[in-house]
């Protein structure tokens, strides 16, 4: 599917995630991210990359919850921190899904010529997660071949240097090869243009509707978007907003089209 559609989907889903700390919206949204990943992931380092985003999200949640000890510690304060951490984790999972369903270099082709270099930088930045994961895999394999057998966690320092080095080298190599293939500033190829398929329309439409519903909910204070844990209570939620979150799972169900 056209990467522009994925970008629009990510933007809408992220804004929905940022707008609320209500677990009855955040939990389905997390499931949406996982479902979209499962249904539309592309071959490559997607699996490991998505898992890494989930890990980072989990660490963000735990860290945010731990920060409560710096203030007054109470059940209400802990739950408030957990909800904020959950929002962060869901945001990361959405971004992880984006990373696993798109090829970052296809994003590059969306950029107008004037913004090619910053777009190139952005693409390399976007792709750093899957590329790092790939590098880790390769370095690990090389270590095993050389008979270096250390347990997973203790081998971390021995892993860092080669991965960083590899990353640097790769960036330079990548830039050179892309330049050689004509992704440089000078030329723009019309070969295999990306088509905006009906799947893309449906995805963007559903995402915009979902965002619109949440925007309306925010304006009208509907459905307890920001949940206060003082006092503890089940957040009174709006079923319409839950449906809006489920709408964001549409890209997982539209038939894939080769483009």
């Amino acid at each position, binding site marked *: 599917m056209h990467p522009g559609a994925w970008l629009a989907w990510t933007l809408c889903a992220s804004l929905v995630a940022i707008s609320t*700390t209500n*677990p*009855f*919206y955040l*939990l*389905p949204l*997390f*499931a*949406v991210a*996982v*479902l979209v*990943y*499962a*249904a539309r*992931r592309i*071959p490559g380092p*997607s*699996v490991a990359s998505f898992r890494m985003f989930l890990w980072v999200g989990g660490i963000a949640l735990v860290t945010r919850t731990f920060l409560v000890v710096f*203030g007054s510690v*109470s059940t*209400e*304060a802990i739950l*408030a921190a957990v909800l904020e951490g959950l929002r962060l984790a869901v945001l990361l999972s959405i971004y992880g899904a984006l990373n696993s369903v798109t090829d970052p270099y296809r994003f590059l082709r969306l950029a107008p010529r004037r913004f090619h270099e910053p777009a190139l930088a952005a693409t390399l930045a976007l792709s750093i997660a899957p590329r790092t994961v790939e590098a880790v895999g390769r370095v690990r394999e090389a270590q095993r071949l050389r008979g270096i057998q250390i347990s997973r966690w203790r081998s971390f320092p021995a892993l860092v240097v080669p991965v960083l080095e590899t990353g640097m080298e790769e960036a330079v190599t990548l830039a050179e090869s892309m330049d050689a293939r004509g992704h440089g500033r000078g030329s723009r190829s019309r070969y295999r243009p990306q088509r905006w398929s009906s799947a893309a329309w449906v995805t963007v439409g559903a995402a915009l509707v979902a965002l619109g519903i949440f925007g309306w909910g925010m304006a009208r*204070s509907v*459905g*307890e*978007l*920001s*949940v*206060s*844990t*003082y*006092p503890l*209570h*089940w*957040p*009174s*939620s*709006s*079923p319409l*907003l*839950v*449906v809006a*979150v*489920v709408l964001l*799972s549409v890209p*997982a169900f539209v038939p894939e089209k080769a483009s």
Partner: protein
Amino acid sequence: MKRRGLFCVALLVGGLFPTGFAAPSACASEGDHAVLVIDDGSSDFALCVQLNAPVVSGLELIELAGDQYDLQYRFGYGGRAVCQLANVPTTPPPDECFEQGKPFWGYWRDGDSGDWTWSGTGAATTEVRDGDVEGWSFGEGNSGETHPPPPLEDFDAACADHLATEKQDEDPPDGQPGPDEERPEPDPTGGAEEGGRGREQGDRSAEPAHGPELSDERRLDSAPEPSEFDDPLARPVEPGDEPSPQPSLPAGATSADAEPQEFPAAGILAIVATIAMAGVAAYLLTKRKST
């Protein structure tokens, strides 16, 4: 004394279930009370709140009133500010609820000393002690001069019921059940289906009065003038009901009248949707092998 202690424990345990028990006020350490005056712009009322410690904060006083009277409240800004009180404003506000131009709950102190003092500090850090009168008024105006104050309240008038009742509790000789044990629990009419109303009745009847004669006496002695208590929503007395004391909480101010306490339907929908989507994802992940 032992029987009373056991009954106290039973009441406290019973108080954990949402059955309308107002148990804690009968069993916590006696003596310390403070008055909480609330004026939401159209009606006002005063509550005599029993303190569970010699010093509590202004916010803790509201929490205690929530325990003892089922007063509805919602704090924001990480539990440091009052965003919603007695279901005003009616829609639950966001966590950051102060906005220029919108009315808010102003905090007043020392209502027993002749005039209210606009509090310079937030209610999370103030100290409320036995005999204090605290006030909250919903309106616009960022200072004591511009924000409308609540009606002044006399501590002794508001807490007369409570103080007299506790004195009663200490009097009965051993072997004879105290007034609160003898009092038959008045059944909230209509039961749970009546929702907030029924529960509120149970609360109000269970609250300070401990016997028909006592409540009559208390009412005559210490009933505040009608001008102080504005209760346009007082319910009609039903036949067979024991005469209840002056209602201290207008209908609509309890948390039972706000959003329902049980698990929301949207929550069930959300859980079902989450499980369904996770299930489909799991199926897709195990079915396909990434090439």
